[in-house]
């Protein structure tokens, strides 16, 4: 790991000013930044430590929704009683992510900023070509070992999977990212790779995530996060689904439905086509399975990741039907 200057920010403004300096990067939990610095992927000139800032780790939940400070740790949010009862998919997504140690370190703001686990991206010594790392250098993954790569939202420049679980749940429930005085919907915060895979977030130098807000809804209250992976724990998703459902008074007709996919796309992936197809319908297995196929509309496989095209709709259907069982 190349050495860097270490600055400890004592106010949000100081942090933002320092972060705007060339080569400066914000440091919170460190689980992405220090890891990638060791891999040689990020080489910050200055590390701006924001973990000593006060008042950014609060979690408040009321009838309007949840507001979670950027420095709240994943474990604190996952275990928060009101988050569990009003946003179970958010808690589920968090406790199924990473390990207990990493969840105690990683912050909510940093979680949104985590980078892809694409092994080519993470290995600059052996794979110099990576458009995300070095724009215009090419993509080592296309034509390589692609079992974990994305099938949705890919481009000719990049097929790296967005690895996070939390943001998949957030995008399903219309969460909003607070960047100080500016707010961006989570759905707009994550960018498609297109021709510029090096740009992943709608955030400018000198901006900093201060909080996220999740609006309360009946669908969020009756929600789940289903994660399918190669091993039972401590693993990224092969495919995952955040699902929330609200029924009409009859308890069987779907009034509102939220569906988002993880582990299969280049960004958190809202599956609105599935939602629209099932609103007003009865929750029946055949109907749900058929509609869930819409989740992978437009999917493109690159060899070994083809299984995700079959897996993702099954995960979606299973999550929706699971929400029905608890009626």
């Amino acid at each position, binding site marked *: 790991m190349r050495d860097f200057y270490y600055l400890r920010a004592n106010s949000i403004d100081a942090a933002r000013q320092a972060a705007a300096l060339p080569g400066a990067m914000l440091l919170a939990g460190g689980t992405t930044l*220090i890891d990638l610095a060791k891999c040689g992927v990020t080489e910050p000139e200055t590390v701006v430590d924001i973990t000593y800032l006060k008042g950014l780790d609060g979690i408040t939940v009321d009838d309007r929704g949840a507001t979670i400070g950027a420095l709240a740790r994943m474990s604190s949010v996952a275990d928060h009683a009101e988050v569990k009862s009003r946003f179970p998919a958010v808690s589920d997504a968090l406790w199924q992510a990473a*390990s207990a140690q990493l969840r105690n370190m990683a912050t909510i703001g940093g979680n949104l900023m985590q980078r892809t686990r694409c092994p080519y991206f993470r290995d600059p010594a052996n794979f110099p070509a990576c458009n995300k790392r070095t724009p215009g250098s090419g993509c080592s993954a296309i034509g390589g070992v692609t079992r974990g790569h994305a099938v949705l939202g890919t481009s000719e420049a990049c097929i790296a999977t967005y690895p996070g679980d939390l943001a998949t749940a957030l995008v399903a429930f219309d969460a909003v990212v607070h960047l100080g005085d500016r707010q961006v919907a989570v759905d707009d915060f994550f960018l498609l790779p297109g021709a510029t895979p090096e740009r992943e977030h709608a955030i400018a130098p000198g901006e900093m995530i201060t909080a996220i807000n999740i609006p309360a809804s009946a669908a969020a209250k009756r929600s789940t996060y289903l994660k399918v992976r190669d091993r*039972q724990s401590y693993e990224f998703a092969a495919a995952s689904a955040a699902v929330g459902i609200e029924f009409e008074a009859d308890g069987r007709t779907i009034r509102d439905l939220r569906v988002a996919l993880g582990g299969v796309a280049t960004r958190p992936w809202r599956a609105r086509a599935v939602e629209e197809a099932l609103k007003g319908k009865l929750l029946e297995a055949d109907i749900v399975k058929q509609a869930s196929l819409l989740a992978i509309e437009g999917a493109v496989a690159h060899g070994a990741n083809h299984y995700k095209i079959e897996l993702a709709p099954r995960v979606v259907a299973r999550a929706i039907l699971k929400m029905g069982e608890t009626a």
Partner: protein
Amino acid sequence: MTSKTRIPIQLQINGHRHELKVEPRVTLLDALRDHLGLTGTKKGCDQGQCGACTVHIDGQRVLACLTLAAQAEGRAITSIEGLADGDGTLHAVQAAFLEQDAFQCGYCTPGQIMSAVACIREGHAGSDDEIREYMAGNLCRCGAYPHIVAAVRQAALEIASSMETAS
């Protein structure tokens, strides 16, 4: 130019204060092992994947390999060396690991034990499944997992019963 100015930091480790000067990039793991001679905390992957470097900061289990030493300033750090009583009496988790033969080569053991102490304190050792889930961040290349689960289960029961006795 690869070297930046060394910075002075103070670390509170196992109840003792240490003053040292380190490059900003020095992790808590390297500070413990190379600067302070506390080699009980192990360097496995050094990439946040294996859990061998697990220590407690302010009572929470974290990975020392992904924590900058500078970030740990002003926080209470506990490493495996600080777990036993002053008179050498082992912590219940340490004793259970011995009794259940919960290791082979022993390299992952300090991290396993630090993680298990926190796992029990968090209330995540209620069943074997829960122990497996919440101990998943500690890998054991020897595959001593069944004995590790047994040790955590035993220690959790002992700690719970000793708390009942105390109250």
